[in-house]
């Protein structure tokens, strides 16, 4: 985990955000992320994020669930402990389908939730830097990650020229750390550091 320098621009309108994102990308700034109060349709494509593979993972988990259920039940009822139930064949597939279905859903649901948490680095006590508290309320917060060539003043004026109502540069932790929000000063300390 390392500290990095970011230029933050806040927008109060969705109509201004999209053209700004487009321009920021054409000019060549590196977008770290855009934080929005609600899911914005089409924003992920606009930022140029790649399509998530979470569905593929979900499919594999589901398949795993199907195989587990089918393997387990068929082994128990045909090899380990065959029982005569109402004269049905030992390999009674239709009767197992509800269980197989349930296990498929369970595996894919739990697996996808855990994978999602892993991918977005979510867990109890895992903390990440908030660039602007109003990103959870009514502002769209566009964050540019600075490289060696980025001129922060230029980037700031570029953002405010493109409709940003509030611009700042800050040095913040890029990754995550363990901590608690109510006992954390780290969140606010970087506000004063302007490089």
């Amino acid at each position, binding site marked *: 985990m390392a500290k990095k320098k970011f230029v933050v621009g806040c927008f109060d309108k969705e109509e201004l955000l999209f053209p700004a994102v487009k321009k920021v990308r054409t000019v060549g700034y590196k977008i770290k992320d855009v934080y929005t109060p609600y899911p914005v*349709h*089409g924003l992920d494509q606009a930022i140029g994020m790649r*399509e998530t593979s979470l*569905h593929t993972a979900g*499919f594999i988990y589901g398949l795993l669930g199907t195989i587990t259920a089918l393997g387990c039940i068929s082994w128990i009822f045909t090899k380990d402990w065959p029982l005569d139930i*109402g*004269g*049905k064949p030992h390999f009674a597939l*239709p*009767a197992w*389908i*509800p269980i197989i279905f349930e296990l498929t859903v369970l595996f894919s649901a739990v697996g996808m939730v855990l994978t999602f948490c892993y991918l977005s680095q979510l867990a109890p006590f895992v903390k990440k830097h908030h660039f602007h508290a109003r990103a959870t309320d009514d502002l769209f917060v566009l964050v540019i990650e600075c490289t060696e060539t980025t001129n922060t003043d230029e980037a700031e004026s570029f953002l405010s020229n493109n409709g940003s109502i509030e611009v700042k540069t800050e040095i913040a932790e890029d990754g995550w750390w363990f901590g608690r929000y109510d006992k954390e000063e780290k969140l606010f300390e970087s506000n004063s550091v302007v490089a």
Partner: protein
Amino acid sequence: MASSIKLNFEIPSKMKTWSYVLMGIGIVALIAGLVTKGMSTDQHEKDVFLGTLMYNTIFWTLICNASMFFISFNTMAWAGWHVSLKRVSEAISAMVPIFGAITLVILLYVAFSGSHIYHWTDTEAVAHDKILSGKSGFLNIKFFTIWTVLAIGLWSFLGWRMRKISAMADEGAMNKQAGHTFIIKNVKVAAVFLVWFGLTVGSTIPWLWMMSIDAHWFSTMYSWYNFASTFVSGIALIALWVIYLKNKGYLEYTNQEHLHDLGKYMFAFSIFWAYLWFSQYMLIWYSNQPEEVIYFKHRVQGPYKGIFFLNLIINFICPLLIFMKRVSKRNYTLVTFMSVLIIFGHWIDYYQQVIGSISKEHVTLGWLDFGILSLFVGMMIFGVSKALASKPLIPKYHPFLKESVIHHT
């Protein structure tokens, strides 16, 4: 409204020729079938001929009616996304009166001619049959006739009302008040249609028309199963027409986003269909009561085994695996392929539901079935293209058109 938008569909001569060819093949098959089977002295041959006509006409009536259902529930939910392709579903629903009339004639002929297909029409047999006399309050010719006439009549009438109201969206720009009145007018017809749809397709009609072929057997799942079957094929039919028109350069406002939603419907309702298929099958298999199992005996273990499982593969496994990915629902070629597959699959399903009960010993799928299918496909192409050409393809002044244009999934 850009001037480059092509509003009026002109029927290509190639399409006309194709529909005539298909109908020609169909009529030849119909006449040949009538001579070899329909006028045969063997009652069984006659029944197979009538059954073939029956399941084809019922299938096509119901999938065209599913278009009307599609319009109605979208209107009822004040949905806007479908407006850019609304005229396509309207044109398909315009086939309901025509196919409905054919269905009516065939069903009434089957009921009144003393054919063996509807065992419950034989009053002599019903009187000595405890189960059938118990059902006679529902399964009798009087109720059958009245309900069939009412069902087809009201579907046609409400569809006609809906299309008439929709034409108001071509006349001129509406202000807020007029737009509101227009939507409410649509909603009223849609509401009545949905209730009637629930009372007919959602419950009684498949029981009366098809389940009553096995007069002693019953399944409460049957109507829902048939509803899912016709709905998913109805959406596939809409998707096919939309893609065709897109290919010809029409429907500029309809794009991949709309196709994606149609694909989602096909995906979801294929799974819904499989859910009902399984619910019906598993309960009967599990309880193993002779009077219930009789329906599945020759289908699962008899001559219909192949068709029975092919049905499950085409209508469930293929849509499940192929439509699962987002890109495949947005791909015109793949959606076309899947739509054809789904319509064919559910046609086969209707085949085994009807003929499987009439001809239990052997599968009759052959030239007659495909001939009659081609007759109906030809009529569908002919009728729908005519209906499409009669009105602008986009309801220009529909209050929700903008919502459809900017639709994003």
